[in-house]
C-alpha cells in the first residue's frame, strides 16, 4: 500500500493548476538561495498534489545537486530529516546508520483550528506560543543559547523551532519524549511540589528551577492583581498581608496564609496560569529522531508561502513576509467558499463558488494551493 519508489522522478499526469504551480515553484528555486545544514547527510522527501511526502529516502550529494533537483522537479513540498545519517538513502531505516539529530518543536495552529483558511487570530496565538517555548523553556530551563536555535514559519499555520546543540544531538526517542513532556507539563505531579512538615506547608521557592519555580514566580507576580489575590484569601485585601505572603514564598514557606482547600486551590491556579505548552506542540514530532520536516525557506504547497526563516518572531508577519510570488496578476475561478482574507496588504474575498476574480499573484497562488480555485 505504501510501497513508495525511492527516488523515481514524478511523471504522472498533472492538472493545469498543478502544472502552473510547478512552473512557478521551479522559477522561484532557480533564483533563490538554499540554506540547509549538511544536506549530504540528510534524507529528503518530496511531495506533490496528493501527498506531502510522496518520495522519500532521497539523497543529495551537496547543495548544488539539491538545488538543481528542486529546479527540475519543483516538488510542491520539500522535507528533510531532522537526523544526519551516514547513508541517507539506505533502506530500511536501520541501514541509514543514524549519526545524530536536531531537536525540533512543531507548533501548529491546528489546536485552535478555525477552518482551512488562514486566520489572523490563530496565527497570533501560535506566534505567542513559539515565543513562550523559546523564552520560558528553551533558553532559561534547557540552557540553549540563541545561536543554537533557528526558527522558521511552517509555511502554513505554525512554526518550527530547530535546536542544533551538542547537548541534545545524540539523544534517543525516549529522551526526546521526556523533553517534549517537560515542555507540555505531561506527567507533572503537582502534589510533589508541595509537602507538609508537621503543621507547616512548604512549596517551591521563587528561585527554584523547573515548574515549581515557574509557579512560585507567577504566583507572586499575580498577587498584584486584586481579583487573583482575593480569590486566594479575603485576608489578602490588605497590601501588607500580600507583602508578607510574597516574602514567605521567596523562602518556600506557603503556610503564611490560611487558604481554605489549599492544595486544590493552588492546583486550580496552576492550571489557569498556562505555564505549560500542553496541546500546543506536537510531542510526536519532537520525539521522532527520523522525522522529515519542512525544509526552511522552501515553498509550502498548501499555501504557496515560504517556510521562511525568522530572525525576529516579534517583527515577523506571516501574511506579509511569507508570500513569495509578488509579481503580476492571475485570473482564477473560485470553486469553494472563500472568507475575506488579506495577503500582503491586499484584501480580497469573501467569494462564493463560481465567482471569478483577477488577483495579485500571491493571492491567486494561495487559492490555487488551497484547491479553492482553478485557473480561469
Amino acid at each position, binding site marked *: 500500500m505504501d510501497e513508495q519508489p525511492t527516488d523515481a522522478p514524478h511523471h504522472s499526469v498533472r492538472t493545469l493548476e498543478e502544472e502552473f504551480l510547478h512552473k512557478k515553484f521551479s522559477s522561484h528555486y532557480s533564483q533563490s538561495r538554499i540554506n540547509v545544514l549538511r544536506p549530504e547527510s540528510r534524507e529528503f522527501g518530496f511531495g506533490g498534489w496528493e501527498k506531502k511526502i510522496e518520495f522519500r529516502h532521497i539523497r543529495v550529494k551537496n547543495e548544488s545537486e539539491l538545488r538543481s533537483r528542486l529546479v527540475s522537479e519543483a516538488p510542491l513540498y520539500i522535507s528533510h530529516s531532522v537526523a544526519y545519517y551516514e547513508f541517507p538513502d539506505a533502506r530500511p531505516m536501520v541501514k541509514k546508520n543514524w549519526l545524530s539529530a536536531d531537536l525540533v518543536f512543531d507548533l501548529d495552529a491546528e489546536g485552535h483550528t478555525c477552518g482551512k483558511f488562514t486566520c489572523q487570530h490563530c496565527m497570533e496565538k501560535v506566534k505567542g506560543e513559539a515565543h513562550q517555548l523559546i523564552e520560558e523553556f528553551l533558553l532559561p530551563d534547557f540552557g540553549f543559547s540563541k545561536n543554537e536555535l533557528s526558527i522558521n514559519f511552517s509555511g502554513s499555520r505554525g512554526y518550527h523551532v530547530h535546536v542544533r546543540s551538542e547537548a541534545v544531538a545524540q539523544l534517543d526517542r525516549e529522551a526526546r519524549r*521526556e523533553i517534549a513532556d517537560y515542555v507540555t507539563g505531561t506527567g*507533572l505531579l503537582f502534589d510533589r511540589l508541595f509537602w507538609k512538615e508537621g503543621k507547616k506547608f512548604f512549596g517551591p521557592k521563587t528561585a527554584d528551577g523547573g515548574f515549581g519555580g515557574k509557579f512560585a514566580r507567577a504566583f507572586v507576580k499575580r498577587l498584584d492583581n486584586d481579583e487573583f489575590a482575593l480569590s486566594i484569601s479575603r485576608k489578602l485585601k490588605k497590601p501588607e498581608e500580600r507583602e508578607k505572603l510574597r516574602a514567605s514564598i521567596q523562602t518556600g514557606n506557603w503556610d503564611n496564609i490560611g487558604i481554605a482547600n489549599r492544595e486544590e486551590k493552588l492546583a486550580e491556579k496552576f492550571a489557569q496560569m498556562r505555564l505549560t505548552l500542553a496541546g500546543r506542540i506536537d510531542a510526536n514530532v519532537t520525539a521522532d529522531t527520523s522525522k522529515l520536516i519542512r525544509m526552511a525557506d522552501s515553498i509550502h504547497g498548501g499555501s504557496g508561502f515560504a517556510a521562511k526563516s525568522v530572525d525576529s518572531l516579534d517583527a515577523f508577519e506571516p501574511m506579509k513576509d511569507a508570500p513569495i510570488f509578488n509579481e503580476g496578476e492571475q485570473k482564477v475561478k473560485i470553486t469553494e467558499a472563500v472568507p475575506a482574507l488579506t495577503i500582503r496588504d491586499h484584501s480580497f474575498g469573501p467569494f462564493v463558488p463560481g465567482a471569478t476574480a483577477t488577483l495579485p499573484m500571491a493571492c491567486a497562488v494561495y487559492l490555487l494551493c488551497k484547491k479553492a480555485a482553478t485557473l480561469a
Partner: protein
Amino acid sequence: MASADLIFCSRYPFTKQAKDYVSESGLELTSTLVEKAEARVNNALVTGKVKRVAELPDAREEELAIYAGARMIVSSANNRYIISRYAVAEAKRAGEYLAGDDAANNGHVELVASEFGVRFEKKGKDYLVPLSAYLPFTPRSMDYKLTNRELENGFVLVSRHERIRMMEEAVKKKIEGSLPIRAQFSEDITEAGKRMLALIPKLEVATVSVGQENYPPCIKKMLEDLALSINLPHTARVALGIYLVSAGVTTDKIVDYFRHAPDFSEKTTRYQVEHLRSHKYNMPSCSTMDSYGVCIADCRCGTPLRYRDAINGARLRRLAAEKKE
C-alpha cells in the same frame, strides 16, 4: 601501580584504568579463575547480584582477572537475556561500591563519572548534572520524570543517592553495550558459556507459540525484545498490539507477551489491548513501521499483516482449512 589505584580498578573493572591495568600486567586466566568467573556469572543470573568479596590485597588482581573471564563466558553464551541480566548485576555491584566510596569521599565517584564523560557539580547537599547526561542515565520512572525535576539552564538537580543510581545505570549501559566480545574462546570458557545458557528461565523462551513462525521479522523482533525486558517505544507497542489483535491472539495472551516489559502493569496493558481491539485500529504500513524505527528487514510486503500471505499464505490457508475439518 599504587595499591590505591588497584583498589579502584578491582571495584570498577569496567573503567579504562582497569583495562589498562589488565593489559599491562598480563594477568593469566588459570582454571581456578575461570571457575570463579563462572561462579560470578552464575550468581548474576540466578540471584541478580554479583557478590562482593573481601578486598584482601591478593584478591584485587584476581578480581580483575575474574571479571575478564566472566565477560568471556557471557560473550561465549552470546544471548541477550544473559547479557542484560549480567550487566544489571555488575551495575548493582558497582553501585554498592560507589555508595561506600561516596561516603569515604576518596575521589572514586568522580573518577567513575569521568569514565562516562559526566561531571556532577556540587550544589548544597545535592548535585547539578547536565541534561545530556541526565536523560540517558536515568531510569524511565515517575521519580525521574523531567517534568517533575528542577531544570535550570540545562542542568538538573539530583540528590546524592540519585547520583549513584544514575551511575549504576551508566555502568549497566556501558557493560551491555560492550558485550558480546567477538573472539575465539578456550574450551573451558565455551563450556562454561553453555552451562550459562541452561540457566535461562524457561519462561523466557516459552513465549514462542504455534503460528509465531509466520510473524514478520519486525513483530518477531519486538516480541523477542519484550521477552528480554528491552523497552519498546510507545508507537512500537501500539503497532505490536494491533498486529497481535489482527492475528487473532487473545487478550490474555497479548498481556502475557508484555509481562516482561520493564514497566509492565497488568491493568494498563489489558485496558490498552481492549481499547485497540474495540477501536479496530489500522495496522501501520511498513513505511510507517520503518519510521518508528522497528523495521528490520526489507520484506516489501507493504504492511506487516500481509507478510504471512506473501511468504506462505497458501500453505497457511490449507492448514487452516484442514484444522476446520
